[in-house]
């Protein structure tokens, strides 16, 4: 079956014959890990870590470009100012509220969408496409489009309501309705991100587990709660982490839909940061606000990560 020449074909190089560079193909686990993580680390340092350090430094300074006063070290002054700033509290509260509403909202809708999209449709692409389109619509335009949908006169929402015999509301005349419209839009826009990640997770669950559960007597709901959900947990946590972070950074949609109006009732912390830095050029205060927002996001992320680790 084998001749001598064939067996030598695949002979491993002897120790002395090993080319020097092949050693680099097989670094130790530690070295390999360092090498693999290096590109990510370099990029993150360049794009995030360095600017963030600058930002934190700025937050301890009195640096308002419109004040006409040169920059000076201010210690915690910017942070102290924040505590007395009602707009800070209002926008923070709005941000937290948006997070608390849209994150679970997007999770539920996204989970539903993913489960539905995972059904054995004969033609799959329209389903997948409609799952992704909301997300592929540029954020800056999604807000505008939905502002238009919720327009009291020219909007589809009120038009549909009217056709159903319901008198629509002037969405943006009321803090509550405007808030609702914003949350609905955010949920619509972000649930597809959720769905996408959850769908990917769904596809890794072996079918035989459902078969076993089916034989074990578990009904649809039981299977969902005992198999699907626990096995989706890693995917869900990933989706939740990023959705929460982006929810805390909510900017474009309220900015384009209401400009934070009526009044400041739908303004978010990110909008306030943007306003302070870009419009008011108060870089010191704006940076301090950004640091607070960062702390907020970090806190939330830490909680999630603890959640994974606790079960891991």
């Amino acid at each position: 079956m084998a001749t001598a020449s064939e067996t030598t074909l695949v002979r491993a190089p002897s120790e002395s014959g090993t080319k020097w560079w092949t050693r680099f193909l097989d670094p130790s686990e530690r070295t390999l890990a360092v090498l693999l993580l290096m590109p990510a680390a370099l990029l993150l340092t360049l794009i995030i870590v360095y600017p963030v350090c600058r930002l934190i430094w700025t937050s301890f300074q009195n640096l308002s470009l419109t004040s006409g006063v040169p920059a000076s070290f201010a210690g915690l002054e910017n942070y102290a100012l924040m505590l007395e700033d009602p707009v800070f509290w209002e926008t923070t509260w709005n941000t937290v509220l948006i997070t608390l509403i849209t994150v679970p909202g997007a999770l539920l809708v996204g989970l539903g969408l993913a489960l539905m999209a995972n059904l054995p449709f004969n033609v799959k692409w329209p389903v997948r496409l409609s799952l992704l389109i909301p997300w592929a619509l540029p954020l800056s335009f999604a807000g505008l489009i939905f502002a238009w949908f919720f327009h009291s006169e020219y909007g589809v929402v009120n038009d549909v309501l009217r056709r159903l015999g319901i008198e629509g509301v002037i969405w943006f005349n009321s803090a509550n309705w405007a808030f609702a419209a914003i949350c609905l839009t955010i949920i619509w826009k972000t649930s597809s991100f959720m769905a996408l990640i959850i769908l990917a997770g769904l596809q890794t669950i072996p079918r035989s587990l459902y078969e076993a559960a089916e034989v074990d007597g578990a009904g649809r709901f039981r299977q969902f709660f005992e198999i699907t959900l626990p096995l989706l947990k890693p995917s869900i946590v990933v989706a939740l982490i990023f959705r929460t972070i982006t929810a805390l950074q909510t900017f474009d949609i309220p900015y384009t839909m209401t400009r934070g109006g009526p009044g400041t009732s739908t303004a978010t912390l990110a909008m306030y940061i943007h306003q302070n830095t870009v419009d008011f050029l108060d870089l010191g205060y704006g940076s301090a606000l950004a640091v607070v927002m960062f702390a907020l996001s970090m806190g939330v992320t830490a909680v999630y990560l603890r959640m994974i680790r606790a079960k891991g």
Partner: protein
Amino acid sequence: MSHDTPANQSILSGKPLRILIGFILVVNGMFPALWILFTSLKTEAELTVKPITWLPHAPTIANYLRAFTDQPLLLFLFNSFMVAILSTALTLFISVLAAYALARLQIRGRDLILSAIIAVSTFPLVTLLVPLFEIMRALGLLNTWVALILPYTVLSLPVCTLILVSFFEGIPRDLENSAMIDGCTRIGALFKVVVPLSAPGVFTAGILAFVNAWDEFLLALSFNSNPMLRTLPVGITLYQGEFAFPWPVISAALVVGIVPVAVLIVIFQERVVSGLTSGGIKG
């Protein structure tokens, strides 16, 4: 995975129900896009008609003509496409490496590294605009694709890494072992076996990265002031005037911008058949 089992049928049974669900999904996802499509075929006057019209009364392609003639729309598309594709490729490459290290190698402080990667993404890029601008200027990257590709890569890196980590963890180690015995290096096994088997995850991550890059506005506006390098979201705002917002023309441009993404998704989705990983091993 592809065939129906009775179990599957009972889970959400019946063709009619399935068609209904499909319909709901499609309406939910497609409606705004369709609305834009309809709008792009209307005249501006039709938008202020009361009650509002759904389908265009007198469809016109004038808006598309304007979209292509008023601004170099194809150029915007090209720029967006290149920036998005390149940053997606870079994101995937970097996050595949990082995710593999995190998923497979015995690293001390693995959780810490993972947390750190996520933590950096909690900083909104908007607040880093000015320092980033300075970095890009210092590196002489302003008005190049690279000025956008690097931050976009960072934008998607954490989420892609995390997705890939969870996918890699689901690939049986023996498959990789088998490849290593078959003559691959670890990295070879990674790209020849682990990555292809994580295709749904890689696809998901890729789509996320692509869309993130495709959508971004603020950095694109700030870093690339050269009209030849404008990306689509920035380009589309050029149809605006100081006060005027010509929805039909902008809609036409948006439609032109959505189509490539849609085509891309459809093409890829055909390739990424579900359940690739099943059947390779005994368990």
